[in-house]
């Protein structure tokens, strides 16, 4: 996937900009872990604890290159967030990755069919994230 802004390096720093990932998880532990994994690969990371806050931020901040979200969250699941993003003309190009602690094939398929870029099983490891680097917008 070529970028109009220049060569994309693997990892969080491209030729002219730092890649910005929005991480969504209601667990403070998991937010800290995913943020650390991403930052250690030099991504710029913003974390929020709900789908609602994610959408608020996406409305204000145009430069999000990837969304990585937990599946099970109260009020709005990661799947619901995915659907909203993919149905939005402004947001639909942003790759969305779903994380879940449960390996449920139906759930994985549903998310991929809805347009999720990838589905990661928790606990997330640095190796999981390094394989995402090609999918950034």
């Amino acid at each position, binding site marked *: 996937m070529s970028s109009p802004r220049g060569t994309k390096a693997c990892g969080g720093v491209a030729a002219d900009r730092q890649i910005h990932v929005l991480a969504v998880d209601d667990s403070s*532990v*998991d937010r*800290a*872990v995913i943020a*650390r994994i991403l930052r*250690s690969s030099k991504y710029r990371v913003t974390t929020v604890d709900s789908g609602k806050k994610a959408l608020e931020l996406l409305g204000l901040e145009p430069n999000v290159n990837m969304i990585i979200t937990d599946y099970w969250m109260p009020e709005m699941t990661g799947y619901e967030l995915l659907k909203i993003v993919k149905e939005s003309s402004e947001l639909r190009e942003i790759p969305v990755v779903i994380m879940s602690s449960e390996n449920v094939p139906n759930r994985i398929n549903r998310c991929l069919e809805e347009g999720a870029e990838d589905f990661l099983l928790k*606990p997330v490891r*640095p190796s999981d994230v390094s394989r995402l680097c090609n999918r950034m917008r």
Partner: protein
Amino acid sequence: MFIYTTPVYRLSLALQGFLDEQFYQLEELQDESSPNFVEEVVTLFFRDSSRLMANIDQALEQCPPDFHRLDKFLHRLKGSASSIGAGKMKNECAGFREFCSEENLEGCLRSFQKVKKEHTILRQKLENYFQLLRQVVPVDKATRSGS
């Protein structure tokens, strides 16, 4: 001067079955830009898990118990334990969840006692571990200088 190698202590914790590979992964993520990462995440875990366990306590005391709500708390507790590499606690939570799905109150109560015990032991062991790290020069850091 006694130099205590943290990999040895970590290994002994793992051997006793408390921690799994995920804890090692977290330690690998710690560096100069985030020198207290593991302790910070562990602190978040104990804050989160203490609150969840209080919620579980309440859910079990309800008459009749709300197993659906209980399962949600357990899912979260098990997830957090898994994320910090607390393998033993994760497994105890999995057992607890099974009783919960069977709506077996007796089993739930017994499981919960085990989870509480594991939680207390794990907290003590990790506190000791971080204290040791603060007191001694870790051999692996010393040998990594300049890299």
